[in-house]
C-alpha cells in the first residue's frame, strides 16, 4: 500500500475563504453564524446560519457563472485554492492519474428550488435551460476536472453529513492502491434557501436563536444546546502519493493514515454509540495506530441532544479512561454544520490543529452536561499541544459514519 499525503488545502467558509484566516478565526473563537438577511428569513423559526461572503459573479467569467449553482461556485473556488496551495500549476502531471472525488448532501438544491418557483408559482412556460447541469449532484466534481483536464476517476458521494469525509477516504483508497497518483477531494453544500432551511426546521433539529448573541446559537456539548445551525461553503484537499509529492518537491501538510467507514443500521437519523465507536475503531485499525496515539479529535459535535451525548459515549468506549485526556472540540460551534461539506472542512481544521499544536475551542459551552464529560476545550483555544495524530469524525443521517486520521509529517 502506498502512503498518501495532503499537499493542498482550500476552502470557502462562514469564517473565512482563506486557510490561514479560517484557522485564525477558529482559534480566536470567532463565529460565522449570523442572522439571515434574506426576505424569506421572517418565515423561519430560527433565521440563523453560517453564511459565506463570496462574490462569485466577480470570480467567474460571466458565461461560466451562469452555469454554476451556488454549491459549485463554492466547490470550484475551494478547489482552485487547494490546487494553487499544492503548487500544481506548471508541474507536469499525467491527467489520467489524477481524479476528483467530491461530496455533497443536497447538491444543486437552490437551482431546483428556483425552477419549481418559476414553474409552479410564476407559471413560467419553461425553466432555465441550464437547470439540469446546475442541479446535478456531480456538477462540482465535473467542473473541477473540466477546468484542469484531470481525466482520472470522477465521482460524487452523497452520504448526507459524511459525504466529503467519505470522498476524502475513498480518494485515499484510490491512491493507496495505486490506481491514481493524485486526487482532488472534498465537498460542498449550499443549503441556505427557504426550502432547505424549512426542511431542516421541520425535523426539529435546528437550534433556537440565542437571544443575547445569535452568533452563539450553536452550543455543542453544552447542557443548554438546542440543535444544529446550518452552514454553507466548501473544502477541498489535494491528496497525493508520498513518492509523487516528494518527486515534485511538494510541501507536505500531513499524512492521511486512516479511514474508518461503518454503517449504523439502527435508525435512519438516531445515532448509536456502537456505530460511532466502530467507525473510530476501524479508522484506528486501518491506520495501524493505538487510541493513545491520537492527540486531538475534531468531533462531529453537531449541537443536537442526540449526537453529542452519543458521540461522547462512543469516544469513551474507544479510548477508555484516556478519553478524558484528549482535547475534543466541535468547530461547528463557529462555522455551523456544512452537511456534505462538513467532513472536508473539519478535516482541514484537524490538520491545522496538528500542525500548529493549537486545539480550536468548542465555543458557547457555558453549561456542562453530565452526559458530556470530556475535555471539549471550552470557549478558549488550547495552545502548545504536541499533536502527533488527529482524528476527524463525521456521522450521518442514513448511518454512513466516516472517520479520518492524519499524522504529522
Amino acid at each position, binding site marked *: 500500500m502506498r502512503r498518501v499525503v495532503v499537499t493542498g488545502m482550500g476552502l470557502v467558509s462562514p469564517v473565512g475563504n482563506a486557510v490561514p484566516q479560517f484557522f485564525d478565526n477558529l482559534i480566536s473563537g470567532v463565529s460565522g453564524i449570523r442572522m439571515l438577511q434574506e426576505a424569506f428569513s421572517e418565515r423561519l423559526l430560527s433565521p440563523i446560519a453560517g453564511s459565506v461572503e463570496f462574490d462569485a459573479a466577480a470570480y467567474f467569467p460571466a458565461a461560466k457563472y451562469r452555469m454554476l449553482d451556488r454549491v459549485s461556485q463554492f466547490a470550484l473556488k475551494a478547489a482552485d485554492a487547494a490546487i494553487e496551495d499544492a503548487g500544481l500549476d506548471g508541474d507536469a502531471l499525467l491527467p489520467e492519474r489524477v481524479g476528483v472525488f467530491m461530496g455533497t448532501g443536497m447538491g444543486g438544491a437552490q437551482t431546483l428550488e428556483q425552477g419549481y418557483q418559476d414553474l409552479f408559482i410564476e407559471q413560467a*412556460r419553461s425553466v432555465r*435551460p*441550464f437547470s439540469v447541469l446546475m442541479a446535478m449532484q456531480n456538477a462540482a466534481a465535473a467542473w473541477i476536472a473540466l477546468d484542469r483536464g484531470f481525466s482520472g476517476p470522477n465521482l460524487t458521494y452523497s452520504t448526507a453529513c459524511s459525504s466529503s469525509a467519505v470522498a476524502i477516504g475513498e480518494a485515499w483508497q484510490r491512491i493507496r492502491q495505486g490506481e491514481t497518483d493524485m486526487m482532488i477531494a472534498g465537498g460542498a453544500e449550499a443549503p441556505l434557501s427557504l426550502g432547505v432551511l424549512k426542511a431542516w426546521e421541520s425535523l426539529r433539529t435546528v437550534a433556537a436563536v440565542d437571544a443575547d448573541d445569535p452568533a452563539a446559537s450553536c452550543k455543542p456539548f453544552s447542557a443548554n444546546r438546542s440543535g444544529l445551525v446550518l452552514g454553507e461553503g466548501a473544502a477541498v484537499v489535494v491528496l497525493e502519493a508520498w513518492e509523487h509529492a516528494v518527486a515534485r518537491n511538494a510541501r507536505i501538510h500531513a499524512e492521511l493514515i486512516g479511514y474508518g467507514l461503518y454503517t449504523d443500521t439502527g435508525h435512519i437519523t438516531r445515532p448509536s454509540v456502537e456505530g460511532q465507536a466502530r467507525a473510530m475503531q476501524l479508522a484506528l485499525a486501518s491506520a495501524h495506530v493505538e487510541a493513545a496515539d491520537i492527540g486531538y479529535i475534531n468531533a462531529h459535535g453537531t449541537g443536537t441532544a442526540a449526537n453529542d451525548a452519543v458521540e461522547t459515549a462512543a469516544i469513551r468506549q474507544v479510548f477508555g479512561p484516556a478519553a478524558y485526556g484528549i482535547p475534543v472540540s466541535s468547530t461547528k460551534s463557529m462555522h455551523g454544520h456544512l452537511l456534505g461539506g462538513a467532513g472536508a472542512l473539519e478535516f482541514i481544521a484537524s490538520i491545522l490543529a496538528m500542525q500548529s499544536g493549537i486545539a480550536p475551542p468548542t465555543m458557547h459551552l457555558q453549561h456542562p452536561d453530565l452526559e458530556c464529560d470530556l475535555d471539549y476545550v471550552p470557549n478558549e483555544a488550547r495552545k502548545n499541544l504536541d499533536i502527533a495524530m488527529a482524528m476527524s469524525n463525521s456521522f450521518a443521517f442514513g448511518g454512513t459514519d466516516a472517520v479520518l486520521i492524519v499524522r504529522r509529517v
Partner: protein
Amino acid sequence: MNTLDKLQDLLSKEYALPREVVTPETALDAVGVDSLGMMELLFEIEKTFDIVIPNEQVELKTVGQLAAYIDHLRVQPRAAPGLAAS
C-alpha cells in the same frame, strides 16, 4: 428601442461585455455563445421579447442575423408552445 438595440443590451449584460463590442456584425461565438450557451440565450430572448422560438434549425451566426430572426418571429402568429427537449 428596436430589436437590435434590445438584443445588444441583452448580450452585453448576459456576457458582461461593453455595449460597443456587440455590433450587428459580431459573431455570436465571439461573444461567448456556444451551442449550449445558445439554449440559455434563446430562453432569455423568449422572455425579453415575449415570443416563442420554435424548435427549428436556423443558421444564426451574427448578432444581426439573430435580431432579424427575432423580428421575423415577432410578426408571425405564435408558434405552438413548448420547445421539444433534445
